[in-house]
């Protein structure tokens, strides 16, 4: 384990991105990033990247569209609705913290200046619970993912509009960006290797999704999991594939990564929850 860690640390320092300059502003990064995919997949419209790998993989798209006719996440949305409707012991509910249900999804993630933190949807749900004297849900699946799915479903059609304003917000953004482009783990890979430079190509039998759109459709029902998982659950899975130590869901590292990836997907519609094989 120690070895893996040292490797991650040294390569992180070297893992600067050839695609996006370190000095570039977030706005410059955004247009370079979306421009890169526009060139790489000339037939894919920007708005379609919300569909993940299916935006660039025509053969699997048909199967997916069939799956979406009887979505495997439907029951989870119903469960999520019951969780949403269940009042806390003090008589309050999620709407008292988060506002009208249809407007919640598109507000996250965002920079929380008061706490110098990144507020994620899942984080805000659990904060609402603990602020009201309830126990926090587990982070990666189960009730939290179901409630997140209900909120995502109600918020479909809202558009990503993440802001990076001020030095401290930029520091979070840069941490996420460095993570995304940094080589890590025993296999010495970066998120960008698989989800930018080789996106649309196959690793064994799997076609790699473009990172553009990664954040729009979570939580995701994955056939391999047999249930619903949050974005950070998936981050952990990909980290393990690179034989790098996964971080905890809602760790600083993954919050920064979500902030960066969500910013890169600005302008796309939210269409969660999603279904993947």
């Amino acid at each position: 384990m120690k070895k893996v860690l040292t490797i991650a640390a040294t390569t992180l320092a070297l893992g600067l991105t050839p695609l996006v300059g370190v000095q570039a502003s977030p706005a410059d990064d955004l247009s370079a990033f979306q421009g890169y995919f526009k060139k790489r997949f000339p037939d894919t419209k920007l708005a379609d990247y919300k569909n993940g790998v299916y935006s660039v993989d025509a053969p699997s798209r048909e199967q997916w569209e069939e799956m979406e006719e009887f979505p495997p996440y439907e029951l989870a949305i119903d469960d999520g609705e019951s969780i949403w409707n269940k009042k806390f012991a003090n008589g309050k509910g999620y709407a008292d913290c988060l506002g009208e249900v249809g407007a919640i999804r598109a507000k996250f993630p965002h920079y929380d200046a008061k706490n110098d933190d990144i507020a994620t949807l899942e984080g805000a749900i659990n904060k609402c619970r603990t602020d009201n004297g309830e126990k926090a849900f587990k982070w990666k699946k189960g009730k939290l993912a179901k409630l997140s799915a209900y909120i995502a479903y109600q918020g479909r059609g809202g558009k990503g509009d993440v802001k990076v304003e001020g030095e401290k917000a930029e520091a979070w953004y840069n941490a996420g960006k460095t993570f995304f482009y940094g080589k890590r783990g025993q296999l010495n890979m970066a998120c960008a290797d698989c989800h930018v430079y080789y996106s649309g190509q196959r690793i064994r039998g799997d076609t790699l999704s473009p990172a553009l759109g990664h954040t729009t459709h979570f939580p995701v029902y994955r056939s391999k999991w047999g249930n619903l998982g949050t974005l950070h659950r998936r981050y952990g899975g990909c980290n393990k594939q690179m034989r790098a130590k996964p971080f905890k869901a809602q760790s600083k590292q993954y919050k920064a990564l979500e902030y960066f990836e969500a910013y890169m997907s600005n302008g796309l519609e939210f269409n969660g929850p999603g279904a993947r094989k």
Partner: protein
Amino acid sequence: MRINFRQMITSASAIAIVAVMGITTNIATAEDKAASPLEEGKKLAFNKKKGNCLACHMIQGGEMAGNIGPPLIAMKARFKRDALIAQITDAREKNPNTIMPPFGTYSIVSEKEIEKIADFILSL
């Protein structure tokens, strides 16, 4: 009760048979290995926990190959053994930002295993 007892006897003998078969298959693979180093190199190249070359390269005889790297074909005509071993040991020598893992430098497989993989690849 009697049925249960009989079932116990059958399953016990089944275990015994499996145990015996287990031993024989072990012997068989040991002999396989001794018989064919190329076959061993192939296993190392295809195994997901070892070379996993198929994740990225089309290789004759392998299924569900990825297409991240170039197909590994006509290798003998294109590669000297040393150059191939160097490529597997650390692909960053040629391309610092490569996605191909540094198999030797990061001890993903041993030096001996790299040689076996290389000999298999050269046989393609």
